[in-house]
């Protein structure tokens, strides 16, 4: 039985193929852009190609992410919060807290043994509480998003970026740049500022180890480090966590499929 999980995010989209609810067969990723139907189709095709399968081999498609309604041929849609929690639990079975940071906002959830969400919060929109802020900073400071993390890690004296509003925070960064504060210190400060907001959200659901980070920010080592420092403990990490929501969707799809078959038999 093969289920597909598609995550159509505000910034990036992912696809996962899962066999029997246990084995990851293929992964694919790409920026979302503005044509969400197209990106979903392309990702699915590319995942299928890398697994050497065809569309007919897929028994069930579960879609998540804010563009979940743009893929018409879905069998199930779930929100990215539910999906990311399941994905995190799949990869790290002892997870109790999941932090899923997307471009626009961050979602913290507390999950039970089965991966079901007990409580969740999202960052207030009115705050630099998502990865999009870091993307902007990467742009103004003219370092690529990929190098932002590694460069920030070299900082010895991160500057505090105190403003809560993203609009003001951006001005503050530009102002720091004009004052020729070392770039790595600004970048680390920006990471810490997002961590500060996100931490507050996590705190609102109650922090319990183990904490698993999912979404695009797992690829930003400075964010991970700043977060671990704030937390005072390790985060679960693995490159697959980038795909957690797609994975979680595929997994939930598999469960649905079982249920359906069980009823049908």
């Amino acid at each position: 039985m093969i289920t597909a999980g598609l995550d159509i995010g505000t910034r990036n989209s992912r696809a996962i193929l899962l066999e029997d609810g246990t084995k990851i067969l293929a992964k694919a990723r790409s920026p979302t852009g503005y044509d969400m139907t197209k990106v979903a189709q392309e990702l699915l095709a590319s995942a299928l190609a890398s697994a050497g399968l065809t569309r007919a081999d897929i028994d069930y498609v579960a879609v998540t992410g804010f563009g979940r309604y743009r893929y018409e041929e879905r069998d199930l849609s779930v929100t990215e919060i539910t999906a990311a929690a399941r994905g995190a639990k799949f990869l790290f079975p002892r997870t109790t807290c999941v932090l899923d940071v997307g471009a626009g906002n961050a979602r913290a959830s507390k999950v039970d043994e089965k991966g079901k969400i007990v409580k969740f919060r999202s960052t207030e929109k009115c705050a630099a509480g998502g990865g999009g802020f870091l993307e902007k900073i990467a742009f103004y400071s003219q370092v690529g998003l990929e190098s932002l993390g590694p460069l920030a890690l070299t900082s010895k004296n991160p500057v505090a970026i105190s403003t809560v509003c993203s609009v003001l925070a951006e001005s503050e960064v530009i102002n720091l740049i004009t004052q020729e504060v070392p770039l790595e210190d600004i970048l680390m400060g920006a990471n810490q500022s997002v961590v500060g907001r996100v931490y507050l959200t996590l705190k609102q659901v109650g922090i319990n180890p183990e904490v698993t980070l999912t979404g695009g920010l797992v690829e930003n080592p400075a964010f991970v480090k700043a977060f671990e420092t704030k937390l005072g403990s390790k985060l679960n990490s693995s490159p697959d966590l980038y795909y957690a929501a797609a994975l979680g969707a595929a997994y939930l799809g598999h469960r649905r499929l079982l249920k359906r078959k069980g009823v049908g038999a």
Partner: protein
Amino acid sequence: MQALRTYFAGIDAGSTYTKGALVDDRGALVETTVDMTGINIVTATKKAYAQLLEKAGVSEGQVAYVIGTGYGRYRITFGNTQVTEISCHAKGAHALFPGTRTVLDMGGQDTKAIRVNDRGEVVDFCMNDKCAAGTGRFIEGSARVLGLSLKQVGTLSMNSSNPVKVSSTCAVFAETETQEQLAWGNKLEDVLYGIHVSIATRSIGLLRRVGIDPEITFTGGVSQNPGMIRCLEEQLGQKLNTSPLTNFCGALGAALFAREKYENTTGTGRSAA
């Protein structure tokens, strides 16, 4: 005194672009220049100044007075003094369009509405409060997220026949909202135009604070965006003054201030650096 002409320079160190303008001793615009500000503002301003002189074929010794403006104005090491971009935009706009009574400056970091008198002096001004920040940067951000260039955004948005409503006041929320509109299947050009409409509405709110007296001159980088000009004109129900030069109003105003300053202080021993 040698027979060489005297010049005056204005450097506008903005958040996105650094602009320069050079005027002669009669106050006529001689040359302009523009370049990305980047992360080193000192270098950027020096470079802009050098470029300006080179393009005009003028030597540094011929420039009698330099005024810096814009966010980076205190970082302009070679200037004689600084004036805020509010006064500079007013002066520059008035120089280009002497009938100007209201100036709308939309730049990368903020938007300003300025009321000026018949001499181009600032009578009243308002700047966006943060929660209503509708600036060029926002359009740029949306363009980047959607993988489009600034040019494409401006032109595409002009094709819209049925703009969607982007109602959030805050630029941060508006960004999410535009994507949601796409997620619900709205056409790209309609969403793009919706962004323009929403920023235009906020700017008009700002204009209303100072009062809308014709003629209105639209300055700053965004004045080069045809989509925004269309939106503003539609909503205001009147024409705006714009030209390729309105992008340089800040720098031009600074250069004109430099000339005035110099004339007021000649004989007092102050000279160019």
